[in-house]
């Protein structure tokens, strides 16, 4: 029992250290701006746009969609920034050569970003709810919370894929930026997926967020867990597929790198 407690403590501390390392560049002012000002402004922009186009009664629709999309910010950029940092400080080869279980290494990197993502969404939502006086009294709040957790996990799964790509592609962060904003278009954040051309709808449903956002909107309207379980299961499945794909890519790239095939990896 004591041993378990000790291991948990070590794990928690390593996550905390990872978090500090992730934002070591930031002063407290910079951190607040980055974690608060940018996300909230982004939500406000789309909510105001949506309210102008479709009426104030739809504010919650836009607030939820855009707040949840922010998990992708933490998931995608967090993982990719970790890899980029390791490259910059020259610790990437150490990571690849370390005998530690690489899945654990990999996941501990993702978990920091999941926690970060959840925090971002909660803060973003709370501020938007207050600013727009949104009505959540019918909402199934525990279920909404569950949706937030699920989406944070699934977008981090997508992030793992980009983390792997980041191993070989110096400019992966650019790709991540484009994908991040593409999610705004294809995942039903600001308008229903059904309005997209058919091909893009296929893309929508192969990405995280799409089903999760739908489930969250239903939870906010008072749905029970039974009504959205299908959506959430699908969301988790997609996230898992992306994470597995990312891990597989990681292993392939790692073995290439060790055979000296990937100079770029270092």
């Amino acid at each position, binding site marked *: 029992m004591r041993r378990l407690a000790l291991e948990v403590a070590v794990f928690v501390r390593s996550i905390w250290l990872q978090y500090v390392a992730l934002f070591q560049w930031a002063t407290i002012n910079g951190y607040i701006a980055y974690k608060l000002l940018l996300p909230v402004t982004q939500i406000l*922009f789309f909510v105001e*746009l949506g309210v102008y186009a479709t009426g104030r009664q739809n504010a919650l629709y836009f607030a939820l969609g855009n707040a949840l999309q922010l998990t992708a910010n933490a998931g995608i950029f967090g993982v990719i920034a970790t890899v980029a940092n390791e490259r910059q400080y020259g610790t990437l080869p150490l990571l690849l050569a370390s005998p530690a279980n690489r899945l654990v290494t990999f996941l501990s990197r993702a978990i920091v970003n999941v926690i970060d993502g959840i925090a971002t969404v909660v803060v973003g939502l709370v501020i938007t709810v207050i600013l727009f006086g949104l009505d959540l009294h019918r909402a199934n709040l525990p279920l909404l919370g569950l949706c937030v957790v699920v989406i944070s996990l699934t977008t981090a799964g997508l992030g793992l894929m980009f983390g792997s790509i980041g191993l070989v592609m110096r400019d992966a962060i650019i790709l991540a930026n484009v994908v991040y904003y593409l999610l705004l278009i294809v995942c039903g954040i600001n308008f229903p997926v059904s309005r997209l051309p058919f091909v893009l709808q296929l893309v929508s449903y192969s990405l995280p967020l799409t089903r999760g956002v739908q489930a969250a909107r239903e939870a906010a309207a008072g749905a029970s867990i039974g009504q959205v379980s299908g959506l959430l299961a699908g969301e988790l499945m997609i996230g898992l597929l992306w994470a597995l794909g990312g891990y597989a890519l990681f292993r392939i790239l790692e073995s290439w790198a060790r055979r000296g095939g990937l100079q770029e990896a270092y």
Partner: protein
Amino acid sequence: MSLIRAGWRAFVITIRMRVISTWSYLSWLVFPMLFTIVGLYVLSSGGASSSRLVYGVLGGGLIGYWSVAYLDAGNSIQDERWSGTLEQIFATPTPIWVILFGKVCAGLVFGLVSFLPNAALAYFGFHAVLPALDPWKFVISLGVLTLSFFCIALTLAPLFALWRWAFSMLNGFELGVYILCGFMFPIAALASWAQGVAGVLAPTWAVRALYASTVMQGPHDFTLWWLAAIGLSVVYLAGAYFLYGLVEREARVSGELALA
């Protein structure tokens, strides 16, 4: 004369650096188009009214123009800090405002180009057009808008040199202006305190005139809007005068320019 040459060279060098930088294509080409797409989808949600779609035609371009015009000079200060050249250019006999003048102008050029792909996307993708364009008023409004962007960028750019943390703060301001200056929706929808803040931002008035020049229904008071934008821009420049003095002094006290 030699100062004009120095500013011109800073302009040319900035353009060349931007042409070979992948990031710069994101900021003036890719991001604005993504915003345009979302904007047009949302604006066409509640039954397409052409006066609303106008915001989709020009909104993405405005966003692109603003982010490039405003952030490029600041970002390039940040780049110069990373590459260690910030200190070098600071130590030359050319005042830093001359160099930033050149950099900001380079941003304006890229930003103006940003309108074209977005308008094309709106036309071909969503059949959205500017219903009643008054070319002269449009061009003058765009000129006034350019002046206001120029003055804000030139005024705020030295803050990037002075405070590294300003980077994220000033990035937030970039997004805030999308909302406050009515780039993609009129500010009449905003809370009254927000409208108050918007009123002291020069682009608000220029953007208002710009959109007014594309639709018939009035009432329009172009002269007032133009004068408001120009007047505010001049006030910013006065502030810039003090900021540059502060930066020249503070940078030499703290040695911040050298830090990466």
